[in-house]
């Protein structure tokens, strides 16, 4: 096992985490940051402004860093898995309708006037999660021909159903009287709740989903030869593909439910990893998970500092910075036919 790619991506992730903790709209001087971390145990005795800084760190910044890290990991890992599964460089985690299904679920939930309570607030992410998984399930069922699920059918069914769900969502938003701003905030990824609850709620799904993906490298390598050949090499193709699809979709759905729809990370991170460190999925998957987390953290740091004290939706930053960066990497790649 080559160590270097892991070393590089882990260093990238650590740098991103440090920046994400250190940079925010309230400037905490590095010295104070150090004092807070050293004096952590008796932080109740902190004088002002250290006390406020410590509160901002624990109450706002650390949970946000954790949420963004997990979301980026889910998108990077699922993106790599989807690209391998569909053998299509344009595949991203939203290819077969996770995002549009989640959006429809969320907007449907918002059209009901839930009482303000713990469960009422949970209605939207839960509905988004169900919407996302139902969509994937429906698309998968629609695309199935007998016992096989042709990739082309899956992509076409996903795109068609995605358009349908998006149209319904838009219609509901236009008809709604008061919830439009909430829906827009949600769809831009700007309305997730602060605190540790979203992180804890996401964690089990990501652990299972990304755990399965981490072990799927060999299967994805075989799938690159085509289904028939993979079958001959001893891979139970249909089961393997279904399992990978479910794992990737579940991780993405959980991430989308709490963080909203964030584009581009799931598309470019796996490509950059592939260009830099090769196309072996046993390495590509963990590296994409680590780098997806790092990349989204950096995008989030930019999103909240560039027009501070306002914040940009992070999805704008991922595309605005990610697209030129990806084109640069693509131009520099020596082996043009890398795919």
């Amino acid at each position, binding site marked *: 096992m080559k160590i270097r790619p892991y070393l590089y991506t882990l260093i990238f992730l650590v740098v991103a985490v440090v920046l994400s903790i250190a940079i925010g709209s309230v400037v905490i001087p590095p010295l104070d940051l150090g004092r807070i971390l050293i004096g952590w145990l008796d932080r109740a005795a902190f004088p002002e402004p250290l006390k406020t800084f410590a509160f*901002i760190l624990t109450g706002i910044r650390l949970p946000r860093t954790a949420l963004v890290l997990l979301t980026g990991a889910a998108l990077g890992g699922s993106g790599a898995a989807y690209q391998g599964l569909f053998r299509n460089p344009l595949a991203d985690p939203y290819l077969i309708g996770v995002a549009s299904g989640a959006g429809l679920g969320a907007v449907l939930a918002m059209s009901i006037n839930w009482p*303000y309570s713990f469960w009422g607030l949970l209605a939207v992410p839960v509905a988004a999660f169900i919407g996302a998984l139902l969509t994937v399930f429906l698309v998968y069922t629609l695309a199935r021909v007998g016992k096989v699920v042709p990739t082309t059918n899956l992509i076409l069914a996903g795109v068609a159903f995605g358009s349908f769900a998006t149209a319904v969502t838009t219609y509901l938003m236009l008809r709604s009287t*008061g919830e439009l701003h909430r829906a827009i905030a949600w769809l831009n990824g700007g309305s997730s709740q*602060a605190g540790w609850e979203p992180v*804890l709620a996401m964690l089990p799904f990501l652990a299972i989903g990304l755990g399965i993906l981490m072990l799927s490298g060999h299967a994805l390598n075989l799938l690159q030869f085509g289904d028939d050949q993979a079958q001959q090499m001893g891979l139970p193709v249909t089961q393997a593909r279904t399992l990978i699809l479910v794992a990737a979709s579940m991780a993405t759905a959980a991430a989308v439910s709490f963080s909203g729809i964030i584009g581009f990370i799931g598309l470019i991170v796996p490509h950059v990893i592939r260009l830099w460190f090769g196309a072996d999925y046993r390495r590509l998957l963990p590296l994409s998970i680590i780098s997806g987390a790092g990349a989204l953290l950096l995008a989030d740091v930019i999103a909240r500092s560039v027009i501070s004290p*306002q914040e940009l939706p992070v999805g704008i930053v991922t595309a605005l910075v990610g697209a030129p960066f990806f084109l640069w990497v693509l131009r520099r790649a020596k082996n043009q036919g890398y795919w």
Partner: protein
Amino acid sequence: MFRKHLIALLIIPLLAACGSAQTTSPTVIPTQPATNTQPPATSNPAITLTDGLKRTVTLSGPAQRVVSLAPANTETLFAIGAGAQVVGRDETSDYPATALSLPTIGGYSGYNLEGIVALHPDLVLAGGINTPELVASLEQLGLTVYFLQNPTTLEEMYINLETVAKLTGHESETAALVDSLKNRVAAVDAKIKAVSNTPTIYYEIDATNPTKPYTAGPGTFVDLLIDRAGGKNIGAELSSQYPQISLEQLVVINPDIIILGDSAYGETPAKVSARPGWGTLAAVQTGQIYPFDDNLVSRPGPRLVDGLEALAKLLHPDVFK
């Protein structure tokens, strides 16, 4: 059957994780109130009110450091004499001009929680444009949040003024303010009662696509105030609050007056006249097109009465000389 169970299995951990999160939630350090947040020495009994999200909000005394999350809230706070107690505003709060010097804590594209916490507010005044998720986040950070429901009538707007007055300790000034607002509305009502004609009004919200511009429908203050100012809003017949109306419909209805609520975005009577197909409208031919300050009728605060007076003058200039 199996599939149903599968979905249930997938959801349960999500719910369970949230459930346990509630009980084992990390300890929240209450924010240290800044030294000048103590209520005045006069004995102030605690203030307990139920807000627009049916939450019970308790203050130990009138709020002294208020962060406003909506322009109507900022206008309300300043109008009732609590402007000096406001320490932060959202970026769209641009009235009165003195509010502009206050620090902003983000807005529509994202609220800056760190900035809000750093201001040490003893009250965050949220409004109808804010999401329950934002309220929950602020609450979780140990802040006191009051969600001021958007009013749908002038009477409800007066009640909002009185609510904010209770929260900030300006009840007597507010009683006087509400009286004067009611008198101004009554004065408009009296004059409008005397007029015989009811012009039809097309109120433009956005005409980025001039073949189907957005107008104001039923349930909006635009509709309510046009009606009260002695006009007939053509959007009243439509089925949602901010519907699009086709130019064809507009030509058939042929409104007497066009009011440009989008004049802040650069729309002018000259531009309207130059729009293809709009020349057939009577209002265009007679020059009955008027720019209008949309903030007077779209922000559900005390300036709605200014909006009513401005509309009444515009629709019936002869009785408002």
